[in-house]
């Protein structure tokens, strides 16, 4: 197991390095005009622009820049932000936003796990009855309709009839986080409910369930001890990943409610040519994703002892 973990971690490092390189190169495709604010772009002469770029090391050949970048990475130096927050270290910039996104994300992940799986269980229990149809209608609606529309509906309903604030504010954190959390949870509840129902319904027709019923187990015992546990095996893999990625925030939701979180940071940083922020963010997301998949595999192994990681080839 240890050997496997080490091997997998080493592979992940290579992947992360590759991703960082690609993003590094992609960002160099951006015209250097974005390096300057509009005001600077108007005022500066060509020589001044060139001097500024040269001072930032952006006129060096790509190879040299890349070597510098690797060197900094090796020392875990992620550089400083330029226009998002002038001169502050990137770690600090991200650290500030990180907490806001994570708090909203973790609450919503907890709610959606609980509600989504409960909904799935109830749908299975009342299969082909009214409750099942309502649940299916909900999942179809949330999956099909663009998030922008469902967010708008939540916003109108929540602010007009329930009186919650329409925008997030740091002075009024409690009530103003209600609508963002609801919006975040909508889709993931639907996801969990859909897959819980799907796997449980598949599991219900198995022979061992018939045996359990013949033995005289109560239906709630069958549902929770047998069907749910087995249905959770394929789902459990995605849970750590979805919890970890809450840190990244939700781009649309955070823009929609003006939450000062991580979501819009990436696009903002690209548009303002804040290269260090972009690179660090991408490395962070990639690392979180890879760790999430790994934890998911471990969790799957714990839930279902028949599964071993070392026996077969890894997924990634």
């Amino acid at each position: 197991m240890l050997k496997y973990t080490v091997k997998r971690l080493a592979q992940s490092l290579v992947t992360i390095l590759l991703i960082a390189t690609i993003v590094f190169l992609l960002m160099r495709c951006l015209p250097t005009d974005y390096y300057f604010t509009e005001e600077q772009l108007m005022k500066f002469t060509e020589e001044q622009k060139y001097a500024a770029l040269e001072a930032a090391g952006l006129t060096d050949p790509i190879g040299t820049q890349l070597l510098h970048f690797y060197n900094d990475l090796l020392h875990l130096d992620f550089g400083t932000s330029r226009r998002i927050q002038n001169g502050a270290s990137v770690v600090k910039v991200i650290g500030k936003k990180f907490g806001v996104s994570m708090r909203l994300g973790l609450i919503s992940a907890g709610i959606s796990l609980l509600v989504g799986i409960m909904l799935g269980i109830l749908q299975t229990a009342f299969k082909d009855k009214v409750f099942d149809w309502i649940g299916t209608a909900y999942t179809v609606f949330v999956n099909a309709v663009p998030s922008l529309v469902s967010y708008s509906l939540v916003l109108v309903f929540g602010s007009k009839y329930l009186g919650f604030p329409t925008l997030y504010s740091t002075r009024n954190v409690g009530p103003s986080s209600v609508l963002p959390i609801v919006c975040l949870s909508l889709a993931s509840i639907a996801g969990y409910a859909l897959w819980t129902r799907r796997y449980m319904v598949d599991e219900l027709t198995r022979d061992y369930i018939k045996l359990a019923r013949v033995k005289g187990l109560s239906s709630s015992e069958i549902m929770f001890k047998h069907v749910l546990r087995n249905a959770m095996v394929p789902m459990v893999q995605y849970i750590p990943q979805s919890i970890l990625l809450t840190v990244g925030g939700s781009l649309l939701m955070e823009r929609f409610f003006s939450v000062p979180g991580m979501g819009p940071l990436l696009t903002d940083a690209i548009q303002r040519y804040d290269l260090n922020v972009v690179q660090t963010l991408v490395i962070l997301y990639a690392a979180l994703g890879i760790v999430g998949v790994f934890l998911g595999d471990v969790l799957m192994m714990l839930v279902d002892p028949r599964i071993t990681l070392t026996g077969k080839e890894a997924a990634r």
Partner: protein
Amino acid sequence: MAKASDFEGKKQDELFYFVDYSPEEAERVGYSNYSYWGSVIQNFLKHKAAVVCLFLFLFLVIFSFIALAIGKYDYQTLVTDSSLAFRKPNSEYWFGTDNLGRDYWCQVWYATQVSIRLALIVAVGESILGVIIGLIWGYVRKLDRFFTELYNLIDNVPYIIYMTLIALVVGQSFTIMAVSMIAIGWLVMARRVRNMVFMFRDREYNLASRCLGTPLWRVLTKNILPYLVSVIILRMALSIPATINLESTLSYLGIGLGIETPSLGLILSKVRGFFLDYPYLLVFPASIVSIISISFYIMGNAFSDAADPRNHV
């Protein structure tokens, strides 16, 4: 061949009995009038909700042309007049006016056409590209490693980086949007097709085909592709709501379509600040975009069930 009437009069325990030799019966070949696409359509038509959705969608497309033709204003010649802002729907402005006093009816229907066109183009484009690459990826062993690495590289960089970069470097227009969405969207389809091809490529009948010297493209299109139809159709149908969703998100963030090509997403993002006070600004575009997305979702699921040969007969 024994018919049910032959058994009449015979004892119950007499399960087997001799029949006389008849040359016609001996020459008879098993025949069924099974046709794959016939069964698909038959099964699809049995799904009432999906048929309703199909008609709803067709009606919406046709109506969007009628609506633009009978509307009192033309999208291209709209003028801003803030004294006319926020008129509720009335006989002059059927969907009311927006914050700049422009007719909302023609904006909404024009945007509907743009959104549907974009979604259809992207869905078809990424399916074609995805299926072709997926077939090659799955069938040609030597290329598997290359495509897998390519997939990992493209897939691991957040798509928002590509989209932002494309918007900044190349520009924002309908064509750029469609091409860039296809360029990233084929990944999912290709991967699915590749996994299916992996399952079928070494079945005995394909082995036999290869031994008999069937050319590669024929093995791919005649032996393997039919198994993939249901997966492809489902993915294609679901990519339409997904495209509309992605487009509206990107437009909301300002890196989607340009301002001069309105889409439902762009309209929704434009009225974000006003629809709390003027709900009609939200209701019309939101309900149209919901109808399109939900009908494709339901149709896609129904059609993929119908296209699965295991559900036939």
